[in-house]
């Protein structure tokens, strides 16, 4: 699906399939991600690799993916971006889309990104590991994302050899990824558990069963707007299917907790919740300046309100667009320049109003 604002960003398109909001549980789970860490046999890891070897790694991966194309959707458009050639705003747009990591931007001269399979598969080249195969899906689709990653990995392995140890499995730069190299995660919105103060119990529980959580933008990022990334902590000693299955099962449980918390809120504090979500909606509708943090918190309340049917149904896709399009780099990219904080906060409020207006005036055909 092509979105109007995305024309502005055509240079860095891809990685947006999750925005559609068309996956299961998409009101609570924004996106599902599965990534596999791989290193090429015969090349040193990032700590000791030379620049020209990194170039070779890039060409070997691109060539292998090109040869493998037949079975993983060669007809779908694909795009290769050399991060060293991109302006900073574009790099940050990719970061906000979870298509590159901070680590890759730090070492951008050597890094490349390939987006294929309709934006669902990304190959992150010369990251902490030579290659990270990453699949992003809308809503809760862990098994599907894993299957897509598995196929991509298998296709690549027909044309290249990865560093592998008979006992330890796939070898990675950091031993926390060794074995399967698999990190599966879901980006989940848990305002009900935060409001009922049950969230700490849930997060503590996760830590005890081999899962870990982080904020919206990965390691070390703050939890803003009640978005959490839940992922597997360990990568060795369990098969990929077990790791993915476990996360899937626990995620379903967390969704159930969240739904229960929302029922408790509706039962015991309906007036307060109604007031909270309508106030948030009112501010987003009317404000003439909006900081990122304020927007994230208000949007969280609105998302909750829509999901609890307290606010008009504007469609998950719009909520997702509101969240992504109003991030700093996306606003700068849209404006075509690096905005001052003051201008950006103004532009952000304007874009939010536009998207909400569009929700009010939509044609019945739109179906959302």
């Amino acid at each position: 699906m092509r979105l109007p604002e995305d024309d502005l960003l055509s240079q860095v398109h891809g990685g947006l399939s999750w925005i559609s909001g068309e996956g299961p549980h998409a009101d609570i789970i924004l996106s599902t991600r599965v990534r596999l860490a791989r290193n090429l046999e015969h090349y040193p890891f990032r700590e000791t690799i030379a620049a020209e070897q990194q170039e070779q790694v890039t060409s070997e991966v691109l060539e292998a993916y090109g040869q493998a194309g037949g079975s993983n959707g060669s007809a779908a458009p694909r795009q290769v971006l050399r991060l060293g050639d991109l302006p900073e705003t574009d790099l940050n747009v990719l970061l906000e889309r979870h298509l590159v990591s901070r680590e890759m931007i730090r070492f951008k001269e050597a890094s490349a990104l390939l987006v294929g399979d309709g934006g669902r598969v990304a190959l992150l080249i010369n990251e902490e590991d030579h290659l990270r195969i990453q699949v992003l899906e809308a809503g809760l689709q862990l098994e599907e994302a894993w299957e897509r990653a598995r196929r991509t990995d298998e296709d690549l392995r027909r044309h290249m050899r990865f560093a592998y140890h008979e006992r330890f499995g796939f070898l990675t730069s950091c031993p926390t990824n060794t074995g399967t190299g698999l990190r599966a995660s879901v980006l989940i919105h848990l305002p009900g558990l935060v409001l009922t103060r049950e969230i700490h119990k849930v997060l503590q529980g996760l830590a005890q069963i081999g899962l870990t959580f982080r904020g919206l933008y990965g390691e070390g990022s703050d939890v803003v707007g009640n978005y959490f990334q839940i992922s597997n902590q360990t990568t060795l000693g369990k098969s990929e299917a077990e790791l993915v299955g476990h996360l899937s099962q626990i995620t379903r449980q967390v969704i159930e907790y969240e739904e229960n918390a929302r029922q408790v809120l509706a039962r015991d504090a309906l007036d307060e919740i109604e007031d909270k979500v309508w106030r948030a909606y009112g501010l987003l509708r009317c404000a003439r300046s909006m900081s990122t943090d304020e927007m994230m918190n208000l949007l969280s309340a609105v998302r909750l309100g829509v999901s609890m049917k307290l606010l008009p149904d504007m469609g998950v896709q719009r909520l997702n667009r509101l969240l992504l399009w109003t991030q700093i780099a996306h606003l700068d990219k849209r404006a075509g320049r690096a905005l001052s904080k003051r201008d950006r906060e103004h532009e952000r409020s304007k874009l939010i109003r536009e998207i909400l207006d569009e929700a009010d005036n939509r044609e019945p055909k739109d179906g959302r």
Partner: protein
Amino acid sequence: MCADCGENKATVHFTQIVNDATETFHLCQECAQKRGLKTSPVGSQAPLSDFLSEMGAPIFTKATNANTACPRCGCTFRQFRKTGRLGCAHCYATFEQEMSALLRKIHGSNEHVGITEDESIGPVDESEAELLEMRRELRHAVEREEYERAAELRDRITVLEDDRRAARAIAEAEGVD
């Protein structure tokens, strides 16, 4: 009910998995802490370098010391402990015993059971096929708690792995890969 004190409600359910053997404990918060279980997720977020330095000296075996360098990339175990990143794939072989212990600490296991490098890629050589089959058997033996059979299989796997490593080293030395 807590398995340790038998008084409080068990709120911490803890399953310990070492390789394929599992053991589950049901404890109250207090007794869990007494056992040294970290019930706060913050503990698990500590960077690897902290984790490594916390582990201190015992990780070194007689075979290697902190200044032993990987013959391929020159990375020493001391460097690895500082950065938390290995220099190359061969470091895993150079520091095999240390990595084996470390991986077990991090993941609760040091045996990969997922997709193998040649899985679903068509024909594999004979010894490799045999190795794959034996690993599968080993997993089943552990599942069925047939430990004697498992130990026997493990020994055979080790021998076969050593043979393959030696064969590969020779092939590499001759420039054939």
